[in-house]
């Protein structure tokens, strides 16, 4: 048995079903072993960055660790943005890179890059495999680290000679013993009791949920908790979908690009339970002011997030699902009022004041709000919706209505070109669900190489391109802050998408201001296979403020 065979066995032992990647001399031996030794599906991407995004989409829908693997040097450096994207959103990945022969490391040979060094600040952990015997232990640890505590990407860099070296005996460890890594799961009982005291005292309590709720698998318990105590809920961008969008207790996304009512509700609350959210700049404008008029309870699995941007009144470290179970098991929970109708009624009254003015755009174009309204009505209840980055992301956050489905996007890093590969990965985790990727014409151009991977894998994702012939988010920024400049934001020379669709043998639907929106959208969504929908958007359309 070789090192590569052992690596393949490790993935098998971990229950890996699919690997996303791109081969090359320094990783070919591993892929050969994987094909010979296992049934693991190999998905050949067209650019390495997409391998990490696909693994991310897969991980977020399957709840398992996403695995990707690329070759040394440029393969590995191309993967970096994908790793950083996963790190920013705490997505569990194991990323395997080939490396040049051990005795060549450091001599700048062909396709050598210090990927461990380059990736250090955005991996949860990394390994350079020096001896073939270390492979089982390292893989076992890598999967454990990626998928526990605050989840995140782990990098394993394997020199070619280690992959090819002989290993006489393979035994996969049953358990991991890392003396320096013991994430807190259980919440501190004293702190939990303090939270209940505050809850029973509060007149205007609110929950703000983030992506950590999904990582912890705590969606159901959070929904139950909110309903049991009639707590209004707001979310960060990563927390969209924790509550169904139309749940009467849900008031939308907070932040600069969020709902006015959501921000007002968070500001007016006298008790804020921040759950699995970072209190980052995009969600909370002035974190230093947040505790001025309220008690802040910050619940997160990562102690370093608590107090990083805002000093909480009650810090509570642990796994969210675990902590909420503990909260509900406390005797004193009985003292918490289950009715907050006065506070809710205030919010419902205020909500009507925040009606977004629909911009009257050129009738030749589709109004974004109207488009998302139709899409929300017509898409499947359990659809996986993946938003790219740019104006399309903000419109998606504001207008899409999630029911029993999921909302995915690159929240922390804001990586353009995330939606299509992530949707392909998501589709592999849920072959029977409708998966919709929405991107702008900019993000589409960055990721359209993956249409080939999508075809090769017969992934039936529905791709929506909001075409405004602009890098709209920056155009809008320049409109407000840089003298309405059009520098570097005009997209010309883009391909005719109907011809492009034809080139990939994909159905194509185009919607402009004169189209029968529902009918065309239905045609697109009912396509059995993958399809492209081009939606013509006013180049001067702005996001709601």
């Amino acid at each position: 048995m070789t090192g590569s065979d052992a690596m393949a066995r490790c993935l098998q032992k971990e229950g890996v079903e699919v690997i996303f990647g791109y081969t090359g001399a320094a990783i070919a031996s591993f892929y050969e072993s994987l094909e010979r030794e296992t049934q693991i599906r190999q998905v050949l991407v067209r650019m390495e960055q997409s391998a990490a995004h696909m693994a991310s989409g897969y991980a977020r829908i399957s709840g398992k660790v996403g695995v990707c693997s690329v070759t040394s040097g440029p393969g590995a450096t191309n993967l970096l943005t994908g790793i950083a994207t996963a790190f920013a959103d705490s997505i569990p990945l194991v990323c395997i890179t080939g490396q040049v022969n051990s005795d060549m490391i450091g001599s700048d040979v062909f396709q050598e890059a210090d990927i461990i060094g380059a990736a250090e600040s955005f991996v949860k952990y990394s390994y350079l495999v020096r001896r073939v015997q270390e492979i089982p232990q390292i893989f076992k640890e890598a999967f454990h680290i990626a998928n526990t505590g605050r989840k995140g990407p782990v990098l394993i860099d394997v020199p070619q000679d280690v992959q090819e070296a002989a290993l006489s005996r393979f035994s996969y460890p049953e358990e991991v013993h890392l003396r320096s890594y013991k994430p807190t799961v259980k919440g501190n009982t004293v702190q939990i009791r303090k939270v209940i005291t505050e809850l029973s005292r509060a007149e205007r309590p609110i929950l703000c949920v983030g992506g950590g709720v999904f990582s912890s698998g705590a969606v159901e318990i959070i929904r139950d908790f909110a309903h049991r105590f009639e707590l209004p809920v707001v979310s960060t961008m990563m927390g969209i979908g924790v509550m169904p969008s139309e749940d009467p207790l849900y008031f939308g996304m907070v932040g600069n690009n969020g709902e006015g009512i959501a921000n007002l509700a968070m500001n007016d609350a006298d008790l804020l339970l921040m759950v699995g959210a970072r209190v980052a700049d995009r969600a909370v404008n002035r974190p230093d002011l947040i505790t001025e008029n309220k008690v802040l309870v910050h619940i997160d699995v990562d102690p370093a997030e608590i107090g990083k941007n805002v000093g909480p009144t009650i810090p509570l470290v642990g796994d969210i699902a675990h902590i909420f179970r503990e909260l509900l098991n406390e005797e004193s929970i009985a003292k918490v009022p289950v009715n907050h109708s006065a506070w809710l009624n205030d919010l419902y009254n205020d909500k009507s004041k925040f009606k977004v003015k629909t911009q009257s755009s050129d009738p030749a174009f589709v109004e974004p709000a109207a488009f998302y309204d139709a899409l929300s009505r017509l898409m499947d209840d359990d659809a996986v919706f993946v938003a790219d980055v740019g104006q399309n992301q903000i419109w998606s956050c504001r207008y899409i209505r999630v029911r029993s489905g999921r909302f995915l996007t690159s929240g922390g890093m804001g990586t353009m070109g995330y939606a299509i590969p992530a949707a392909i990965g998501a589709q592999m985790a849920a072959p029977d669900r409708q998966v919709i990727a929405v991107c702008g014409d900019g993000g589409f151009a960055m990721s359209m190489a993956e249409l080939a991977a999508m075809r090769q894998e017969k992934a039936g994702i529905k791709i929506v391109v909001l075409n405004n012939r602009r890098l709209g988010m920056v155009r809008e920024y320049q409109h407000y802050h840089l003298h309405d400049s059009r520098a570097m934001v005009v997209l010309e020379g883009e391909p005719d998408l109907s011809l492009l669709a034809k080139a990939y043998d994909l159905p194509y639907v185009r919607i402009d201001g004169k189209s029968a929106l529902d009918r065309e959208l239905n045609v697109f969504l009912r396509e059995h296979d993958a399809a492209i929908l081009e939606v013509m958007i006013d180049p001067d359309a702005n996001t709601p403020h």
Partner: protein
Amino acid sequence: MNKIYSVLVENRSGVLSKVAGLFSRRSFNIDSLVVGETDDRAVSCMTIVSSGDERTLEQIEKQLNKKIDVIKVKTFDEHAAVARELMLIKVRYNKSNRRDIMENCEIMHAQIVNISKSMMLIQICDEPENIRTFIAMMKSVSIVEIARTGTVALPKCAD
């Protein structure tokens, strides 16, 4: 404000750069960083002195704890610790100042450990503040070169 972090880490290659990289990545100051093996060869002890506001100093401890190669972090103030630094300082001397230098060495418990016709090499091991004082004293003489270890520290004994 200053803090001393005594950090036990796995004695593996790359750990120093991971810890140092954390400081630069998050714009934390490193006033000094010393690393050496402990009685257990698998474990090294890093002594890091850093400065910043309260929130930064707390973040440093939390971010250090997040590093998977970090086994334990102890944070303390200089006054709660025994802190020492070793310095070698080479000075140029002449007949007129030779006596002064030797007297200063005596006052500061520094030793002359190597000498030539025009230069002497002085060793001093003391609290960081006294090292700074000694450098200031030697500035009136001609300093040729200096090598300092940086601060090592352990919390004071408590039963």
